[in-house]
Every structure is written in structure tokens, then in C-alpha cells.
């Protein structure tokens, strides 16, 4: 048999059920994989003892006929943005130095209740602000993929870069991510895995360190669409502790993967065909449409006229909300404190030492656009543009069932390549942000490779709370593209 770390969640579930291996053996394989991959810097905290005890408990349940379902015994990595009781949760920021929550986020509590096994906390951009995982206080993450004939380290994308790498390098069977403006989808695309952002409100935000509260949404990152469906089922659900959590039943997402998309209408938005887009991405997009047509879908040209305004609107709304959310880091109640003689100096010293450059930049933008003289011109205007972008989607979904686009305008780039140019960095999320502003479910599916051998993803966006159709189309795309390439395990130290 191949190594246990090669399995998908679905195959591991079946193997555990059949008694081919134990949850303990599965956990041990992944603990070893994590330890041998420290060169990637994907995890900022390893919790091997916790993983072993979770796995032992899972085996015990299974042997007494008390198994809790498909995630029981499945080893997962958790983004550092999720609060985990008794385990450091720092959002990869120095300002949360030493922060050890006494409570558990609802999403991770749901996963543990389903029997999942915790391997550790994954690296990420500080407070989820970034698209390359270079803003983490704990240093950059390295993508397991490299360009052919070129050993320069590449970024994994961000902000959920550590989670994407943990899954792509087979350190975990799945990982949690969060997506505010592409933070699940863009790194998943860069690392050649599946990333799924549910509809805003589908997964609880309670216990997830807040970045931009009207946009933040947790979701699964996995190696297959089926695994994303299984993991989403374990994360989703109504939570009275999050006032924006929606009280809807959680469907059986795996059952939605029928493989049948005959008659489904797939929209191709003209506005996503941007000047300067690499031809290989445009070709892959066309290829993706062809695959779906061959599977029986109808391809429909649509218009989303305000697409180009989504990204600047996002970069008003998200920092505005962030500047307000991050006001809580005062060095008094938790996290870092840099002592000073008076309270104002203490606030200033603490926040200067605690926040990195990108976070500070966004706090400044946010406080500026919310300030009395500029509120209408920036914040209010951006909220109106958000409504216009939302209306574009609403109109489009009268004519189509899903929308197909590239996930990102380019493939993974080298460490430092976009440093010093914030707008170039923001453009990573050009295609991801519109669906975020509209709160729509969206996934990225590994669909091909660049000429240099790097993964490229295609994005499928669906109607509000229609995760099932997005997953169904995603799986058809996944089978048609049948990307089998894997990164060479150059990072491995045994």
C-alpha cells in the first residue's frame, strides 16, 4: 500500500471503517510528515500529543461502535486564525504573543465533535492580511511547487498559505482556511489543491479572529472536491453565537456530487478577460468551459459590468472593518504589552511593536476612510459599489446557474517578487474579491499547469447557499482536467 499520507479524506474514511489501519497509525504518519517538512514553515505550532490522544480516542469509539461519521479519525491542520482552547492562537501576529484562548471556535468545535484529529496550527499572513503569506510574524511559507529547472522558493499565496501547503505537501488530509477576499481560493490555486469558500453565513465566525466581519468566512482546503464536501459538512451549521450565522439545515454535500451537470447553465463573464492576462490562463479558462460543455452544460456569455471596481471597493471596506476590529489590541486584556509610564504611550508602543507593516498600512487606510471628512467619499461610496457588484451577480444568476472564471490572474511567484508594491500584491485577488463582496459560495479547482509546471486553478461561483451546485460542477471539472502532477518532495528530511 502507498503511504497513509497519500490518501484522500474519503479513502481514509473507508480504510478506517474497513479496519485497514487505525486512526493512531494515520495520525502517526501525518505527525512524521509534519516533522519532516519544517523547511516549508507551513505550521507555526505542532500538536503531536494532542493528535495522538485524539486518534486514540477515535479508535476507541470505533471499536465500541460509536464512530461519529466521516471525519472521525481524520487528521486536520487548523489555520492560526481559529481560537483553539488551551492551544496558542496568534493569527500569526506578534500582538497576540502568548495568547492561549480558554474557548474553542465554533467551527473547530464542530470538527472535534465530528471526531477529527488536530495536527497543529498553520502559518498565515498576519491577521489574514496578505496574498503571499509573507506578512506572517513567523516568517514566510514556501510553496512545495517550484518552476521547472528553477529552485527559487515560491510563495504559496495567502492568507491561508500554511493551510494550502499542509494539504498540498501531504502533511494533513485537510485544513481549515478563512476567506475574506480570496484567502482560501488564491493559495489553493497556487498550491494545486481545492479551496472552498462557502456562502457568508454558512460557517460560524465565532472564535475566528476578526479581520473584516462582513466578509470573513471559514471554509475547507482539501486535495479533492469530495473531501471538500465531507469537510464542509463537518464545519457548517447554525450558531446562535454568530448573529450572521444562518439558520438553515446543512445538506449532505457529498450526496450533491452526482457527476450530472446536463442542462446546467455556466456563465462566462467577459469582464474577467483582463488586459495582460497570461495566455496560458486564458487558454485554461476556455478549456474549462469546453470540459463543462462536453459534460452537457450550456455555456452562456454573461456580463458583470462592475467587476473592475470590486477590488478597490474591497480595499476600502475590508481595512475599514479591520481598523475597527483591531482596536481591541491594547496590551491590557491579552497579548503583547510593551510597558510605558502612561497609558497612551503604552498603547502606542504596544501597537507599534505588535503589528507588522501590512497590518499597519490597512489600519491607516481604514481609519482614514472612516474619518469624518472622508466617510461619504470612501466608505459609503464603497458600500454602494458593493451593492452594484452584488446586483451584477444577481442579474447574471437569472440567466445562469454557476459562473466559471480563472481563480487568480497569475500562478505562484517568487518570495519577495511583489514586495514594495502593495497594489500589485492586491491584484492577486482580482477575480476572487467580487464573489466575496457578494457573499457568494465559490471554489477553486486545480485545472492545469503553466508552461513552467506550476498549478493553475479555475473558480466556480454559485448562488447564495447553493454550495451543492458549486461542488457538483467542481467535481465534473476535477474529473475532466484530471491533473495528476504532484510536487517533488524536495523539502523532506527523514
Amino acid at each position: 500500500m502507498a503511504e497513509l499520507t497519500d490518501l484522500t479524506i474519503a479513502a481514509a474514511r473507508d480504510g478506517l471503517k474497513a479496519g485497514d489501519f487505525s486512526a493512531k497509525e494515520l495520525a502517526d504518519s501525518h505527525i512524521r510528515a509534519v516533522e519532516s517538512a519544517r523547511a516549508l514553515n507551513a505550521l507555526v505550532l505542532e500538536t503531536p500529543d494532542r493528535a495522538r490522544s485524539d486518534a486514540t480516542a477515535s479508535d476507541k469509539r470505533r471499536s465500541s461502535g460509536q464512530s461519529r461519521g466521516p471525519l472521525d479519525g481524520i487528521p486536520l491542520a487548523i489555520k492560526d486564525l481559529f481560537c483553539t482552547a488551551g492551544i496558542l492562537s496568534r493569527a500569526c501576529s506578534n500582538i497576540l504573543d502568548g495568547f492561549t484562548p480558554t474557548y474553542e471556535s465554533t467551527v473547530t468545535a464542530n470538527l472535534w465533535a465530528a471526531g477529527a484529529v488536530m495536527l497543529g496550527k498553520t502559518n498565515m499572513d498576519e491577521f489574514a492580511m496578505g496574498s503571499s503569506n509573507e506578512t506572517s510574524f513567523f516568517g514566510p511559507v514556501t510553496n512545495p511547487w517550484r518552476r521547472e529547472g528553477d529552485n527559487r522558493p515560491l510563495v504559496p499565496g495567502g492568507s491561508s498559505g500554511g493551510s494550502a501547503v499542509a494539504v498540498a505537501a501531504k502533511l494533513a488530509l485537510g485544513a481549515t482556511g478563512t476567506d475574506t477576499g480570496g484567502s482560501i481560493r488564491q493559495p489553493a490555486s497556487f498550491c494545486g489543491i481545492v479551496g472552498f469558500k462557502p456562502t457568508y453565513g454558512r460557517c460560524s465566525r465565532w472564535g475566528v479572529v476578526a479581520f473584516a466581519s462582513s466578509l470573513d468566512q471559514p471554509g475547507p482546503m482539501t486535495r479533492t472536491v469530495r473531501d471538500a464536501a465531507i469537510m464542509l459538512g463537518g464545519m457548517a451549521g447554525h450558531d446562535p453565537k454568530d448573529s450572521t450565522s444562518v439558520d438553515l439545515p446543512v445538506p449532505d454535500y457529498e450526496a450533491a456530487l452526482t457527476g450530472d451537470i446536463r442542462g446546467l447553465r455556466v456563465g462566462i463573464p467577459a469582464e474577467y478577460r483582463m488586459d495582460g492576462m497570461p495566455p496560458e490562463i486564458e487558454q485554461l479558462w476556455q478549456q474549462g468551459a469546453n470540459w463543462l460543455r462536453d459534460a452537457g452544460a450550456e455555456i452562456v456569455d454573461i456580463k458583470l459590468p462592475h467587476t473592475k471596481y470590486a477590488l478597490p471597493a474591497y480595499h476600502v471596506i475590508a481595512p475599514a472593518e479591520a481598523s475597527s476590529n483591531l482596536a481591541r489590541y491594547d496590551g491590557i486584556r491579552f497579548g503583547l504589552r510593551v510597558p510605558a509610564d502612561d497609558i497612551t504611550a503604552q498603547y502606542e508602543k504596544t501597537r507599534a511593536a505588535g503589528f507588522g507593516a501590512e497590518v499597519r498600512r490597512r489600519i491607516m487606510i481604514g481609519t482614514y476612510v472612516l474619518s469624518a471628512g472622508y466617510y461619504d467619499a470612501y466608505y459609503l461610496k464603497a458600500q454602494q459599489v458593493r451593492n452594484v457588484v452584488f446586483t451584477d451577480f444577481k442579474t447574471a444568476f437569472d440567466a445562469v446557474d454557476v459562473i466559471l472564471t480563472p481563480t487568480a490572474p497569475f500562478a505562484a511567484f517568487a518570495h519577495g517578487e511583489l514586495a514594495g508594491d502593495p497594489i500589485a500584491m492586491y491584484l492577486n485577488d482580482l477575480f476572487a474579491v467580487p464573489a466575496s463582496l457578494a457573499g457568494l459560495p465559490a471554489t477553486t479547482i486545480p485545472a492545469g499547469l503553466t508552461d513552467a509546471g506550476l498549478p493553475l486553478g479555475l473558480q466556480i461561483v454559485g448562488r447564495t447557499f447553493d454550495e451543492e451546485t458549486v461542488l457538483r460542477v467542481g467535481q465534473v471539472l476535477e474529473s475532466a482536467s484530471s491533473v495528476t502532477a504532484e510536487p517533488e518532495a524536495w523539502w523532506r528530511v527523514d
Partner: protein
Amino acid sequence: MTDDEVETYVGELSNIFEWIDQLSEVDTQNVLPMTRVVDVQLPKRKDEVTDGGARDDVLANAPETDDGCFVVPKVLE
């Protein structure tokens, strides 16, 4: 922030706001600002205590505490 940092931020932030200014091209007359994506009423509940008695939890991560309180530098003369 050091003077050098201020210099860098001024340049970057000016560029970012110049880029954001393209929002003025969008006609938003009579468009309502969007504050939520899912059109539901915020849930309501009875105004009663549902939580509490967790002083030790609340203080557990504080850099400095004394006798069940957060400690801050002197704020009143």
C-alpha cells in the same frame, strides 16, 4: 513610526488612494450602501443573562492582573 517609515507609507498610501479613486467613475445615485449580503433580520432574544461567572477565563491572558482586575498605568492624577 520612524521618519523613514513615514516616508515609505506616504508614497504607498498616496498610490493606493489614487487607485481607489476610480470608484468615483461608478454612478451610485439612488444606490443604497450594502452592509450585509444575506437578507435576513438579525436574530433577537430575551434580554437575560446567558453567560458570565468567567472572571478567571477573562483574566487568563492578561499581561498583568491584581486581585481579579486588569492592571493599567495610572490614568487619573
